[in-house]
């Protein structure tokens, strides 16, 4: 009897997922011909591999998508001029009390991280990241040398937008993740193309073995533990992978990058480790390194973000420690002076700015290789990516 009911429930879940998948693949089949990044329209393998994946993150996305198109039922709130019987007023008052409680709670709850706008992810994905893309449509990964770009369509952007923002919300704690840093990082490294992999790094955040070890066995292990234990809805697509990786330390295998780049578990895993690595560097290394020299500088989020960004890039942690030593950082050091010195001294930050320039040109319909784009001067808000986030 128990077996039968379990079987029925499983069957219902499977049928619902299949229906949503079928609807998704039907809706995207029509838009496949629109390769929004200028790739050739027959290059649909990557889009197909996303549509075929049925991992928790993908299923969460499909569920959220189907819920967002469900027609909104009539409001349960009575109209303002409804008869004033006690019976009708009660649910209304209960609703007011509920909203008031939520407002009060939100005053004490940690501020949620801002979301990266879809428009900016779309613009980033139209850039050519200029690296090798891997396809995981077959059990063995296929390398597409000299043809980096996978064809992407609007559905691909929707999915990446959902996945990245879910991971940011899932992994934000009392000190929320600065989404602008991740936008600039992912735009610089891979232009949000999750399939890019080489010996330089794997997936969205270009993870390397040493960085993965730092999360799974080093100072960042708490990241996996927090996700595995989290009850947040946004963690639904990441929880199982975190729990699995806590038991079996994952490794990057250069012969098969798929556990890190496949649209299934690979994307979710890559987001956990890429964002986790940023948090580990920020909280376990950069903030303590700055605090050892000055108690006041660590409160500057922009400075901490710039230094974390440098340590995440090829200049690494050693360079950050050296910058602090080079400029004799102490309690008397001014934040602005140090920040300008930091920016002058990092090629990686310069590269990141150039890629933001490219992204902004695409957003403004300017040819990134054209004269008009070259002459376009970014505003401070565009440079800081303030125009790419919203609450």
């Amino acid at each position, binding site marked *: 009897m128990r077996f039968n009911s379990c079987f029925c429930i499983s069957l219902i879940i499977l049928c619902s997922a299949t229906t949503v998948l079928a609807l998704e693949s039907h809706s995207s089949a029509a838009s496949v011909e629109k390769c929004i990044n200028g790739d050739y329209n027959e290059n649909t393998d990557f889009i197909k591999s996303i549509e075929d994946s049925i991992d928790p993150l993908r299923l969460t996305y499909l569920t959220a998508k189907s819920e967002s198109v469900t027609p909104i039922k009539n409001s349960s709130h009575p109209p303002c001029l409804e008869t004033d019987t006690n019976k009708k007023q009660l649910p209304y008052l209960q609703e007011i009390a509920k909203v008031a409680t939520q407002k009060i709670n939100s005053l004490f709850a940690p501020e949620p991280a801002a979301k990266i706008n879809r428009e900016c992810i779309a613009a980033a994905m139209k850039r050519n990241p200029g690296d090798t893309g891997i396809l995981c449509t077959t059990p063995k990964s296929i390398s597409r040398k000299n043809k980096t770009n996978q064809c992407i369509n609007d559905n691909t952007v929707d999915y990446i937008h959902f996945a990245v923002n879910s991971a940011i919300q899932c992994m934000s704690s009392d000190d929320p993740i600065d989404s602008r840093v991740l936008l600039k990082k992912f735009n610089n490294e891979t232009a949000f193309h999750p399939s890019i992999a080489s010996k330089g790094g794997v997936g969205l955040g270009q993870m390397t*073995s040493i960085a993965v070890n730092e999360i799974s066995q080093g100072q960042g292990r708490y990241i996996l533990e927090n996700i595995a234990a989290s009850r947040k809805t946004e963690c639904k697509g990441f929880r199982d992978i975190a729990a699995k990786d806590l038991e079996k330390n994952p490794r990057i295998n250069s012969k098969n990058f798929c556990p890190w780049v496949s649209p299934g578990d690979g994307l979710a895993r890559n987001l956990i480790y890429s964002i986790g690595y940023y948090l580990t560097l920020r909280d376990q290394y950069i903030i303590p390194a700055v605090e050892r020299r000055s108690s006041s500088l660590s409160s500057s989020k922009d400075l901490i973000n710039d230094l974390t960004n440098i340590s995440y890039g090829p200049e*690494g*942690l*050693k360079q950050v420690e050296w910058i602090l*030593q*080079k*400029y004799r950082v102490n309690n008397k050091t001014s934040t602005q002076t140090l920040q300008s010195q930091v920016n002058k001294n990092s090629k990686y930050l310069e590269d990141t700015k150039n890629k933001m320039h490219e992204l902004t040109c695409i957003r403004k319909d300017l040819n990134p290789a054209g004269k008009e784009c070259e002459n376009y001067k970014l505003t401070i808000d565009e440079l800081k990516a303030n125009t790419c986030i919203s609450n």
Partner: protein
Amino acid sequence: MHFQLIFLLFLFPAFSYATLQTTAEFMEQSHKTRETLSKDASFKKIADELQTFEKSLNTAIQEYEKDSPLEGGDEEEKVFKLSFGFKNIFNLAKQKSASKEACEKAKHQIEFEDKSGLDEDAKLSEAAEEALKWLELLCKTF
């Protein structure tokens, strides 16, 4: 008399520059000390040598700071990064003994802090390689 004073003024910066130890000198010091230690040297003996080495590195960095108070230069960068590469082994040397876990953690930290941000097949720096040799020596004692 004037000539002698001018000569001394010219000589002073040259003399003070000559006292600043370079990375090559520190690496040589590290190699020599490590090689003179007997194979059955105790944890304390190795730790003492490491602490002496740490002191001379710290003194050198302070000298560089005095020499150039506003901004560090290229040679200081090399000495500083050498000292940074040894940071985890210096911390281990301050313990009473080395456990297997502490040794594994120090090895991971040395490699991570040296290679963070670099390509998969990037080699460890000379400083990190030297620090790992000291670690091997120190971790033979538990």
